[in-house]
């Protein structure tokens, strides 16, 4: 299993895609255990979310039921995702990880610093789209996955159609207001799926 620490901005994107993560409640595979560690077959990854990241993952945009042309903020509830094991809760633990966390918090916000500290200390990957976090991660030898790379994985693993990929990208743009930066390596792939629409 490949473990990944996910920061709030990337997690918001995955939730906005509305198809990459399974939707809770899942059918119970193991009724005895309420918390199951779930490798997401769609991504081939285990997604870990530090407590501070969960507290930052507040809102996503959604259609306004009174006026579908408009969007309104809707609160994110991660509890069902944790209960069903789609996401794994985690926290900064131990002396080394705490030292990494405090050190990174000098440059990053707490959520990003916690993700990087955990990824660094446990040899996990880091899921982020943030330039500064990526720069620091690369310096620390931590491998970074972006939203676009996660989408590519999902598309490859689940063999979805081009239209489904385009729908996921559009959802992320519309409901999470995210577009990869113009100089990012995945921007061409991202835009090509929108142009095909």
């Amino acid at each position, binding site marked *: 299993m490949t473990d990944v620490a996910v920061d709030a901005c990337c997690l918001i994107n995955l939730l906005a895609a509305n198809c990459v993560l399974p939707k809770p409640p899942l059918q119970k595979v193991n009724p005895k255990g309420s918390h199951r560690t779930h490798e997401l077959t769609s991504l081939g990854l285990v997604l870990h979310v530090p407590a501070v990241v969960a507290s*930052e*993952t507040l809102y996503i945009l959604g259609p306004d039921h009174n006026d579908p042309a408009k969007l309104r903020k809707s609160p994110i509830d991660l509890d069902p995702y944790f209960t069903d094991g789609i996401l794994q809760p985690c926290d*900064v633990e131990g002396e080394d990880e*705490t030292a990494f966390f405090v*050190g990174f918090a000098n440059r990053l916000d*707490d959520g990003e610093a916690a993700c990087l500290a955990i990824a660094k200390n446990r040899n996990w990957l880091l899921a982020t789209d943030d330039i*500064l976090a990526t720069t*620091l991660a690369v310096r*620390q030898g931590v491998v970074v996955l972006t939203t676009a790379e996660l989408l590519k994985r999902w598309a490859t693993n689940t063999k979805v159609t081009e239209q489904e990929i385009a729908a996921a990208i559009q959802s992320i743009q519309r409901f999470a207001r*995210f577009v990869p930066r113009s100089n990012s390596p995945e921007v061409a792939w991202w835009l090509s799926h929108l142009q095909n629409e």
Partner: protein
Amino acid sequence: MPSLEEIDPRTLGLRIAEARKARGKTQEEVASHLGCSRPTYIAIEKGERQAKPEEILKLARFFGLRVHELVRSGEPVMDLQPHLRAVAEKMKDADGPALRAGIDELQKLAEDYRELENLTKSPLRYNYPPEVNIAARIDVAQLAESIAVQERNRLGLGDQPVIHLRSILEWDVGLRIFYWELPAAIAGMFAYTSELGCCILVNRKHPPVRRRVSMLHEYGHLIVDRYKPGIDYLSYSGRKPANERFAESFALSFLMPASSVLSRFNSIVTATGDFQVSDLCRLSHFYFVSVEAMCLRLEQLDLAPRGTWRSLKESGLAPQTAATLLELPSHPEADRPYPDRYLYLAVQAFEQGEISQGQLARYLRCDPVSARELVAECLTNLHVEDDGEQRNLQFEFHRSLLAEAK
């Protein structure tokens, strides 16, 4: 350990001490929470002993702060919060906790602003008016009127209404004007620091017309009380001191210059032979002030009988309803806690990779998705093609136009 050595023990100590004092905790209490002796804790505050990572974590939780807030670089602004807090302590009627929370937020906003200016290498240019001493037996209202005219002339404003007041006071004077929720009876506060110049906090709960008066009132204090931080109530009981009377008159004179009001009043009366409540409402809309402020200004200039406002108020005049009936359009007024320049500097720093997405959301006092919307708003420009088709243009903030011209 990565970046741990970048945390300066002295700066960290200053931030810890500031957080402790803001929460009214003793050194003994914090030391006990940390499980260390008071001398050891004092050494941490003084920067003589580097706090251990787990101690920093404990302290952040104890103070209800994010770890980043304690270990970020840049010393805290030293001469802002303590002075205003001392003023607040003397204000027995005010809602203490809410007022202290407002002072804390002013401190945070001011520090964030300084950090953004440092990151983007964009210092604010100060262009403050000279200080004025109020001599005994002088007519304070007349003095304020004359200084307001001087200030308008100095800033090239003539005697026309100033709609984008907050932006002008920042661009042309160098005032940092923030909005935050304060107790309802408080109009705003003002402090001058050697590092950040004049910082003003205006009560965000009040409507835009009132906020405009409040920011100019605090500007008036910059002129007569530069080094004396102050917190202002909406109204005072009893006779106001001269500096308060100056600030109050300065605000009204600046917003509604006598020459301009006189000329417009004259033209209305000459054309219609009357001056009605609808004219009063239109005039107040024209100067972007409340009907009350407009009416009191007319009274002050002897263009309306004394007591007119009181009589209108007693008769149940509803200015908002009147504005709706007259179909007066609302003025554009940004409601954000920080000025537009602050927003653009935050977006610039983010685009340059100087701050992270999480930090951007903190700087902009919102959630990550709202922060992204603000970035898109700043970077996107609606362009109308020659054939009339509209499309959005995306800009790169850090592209130098001067470099391209060479």
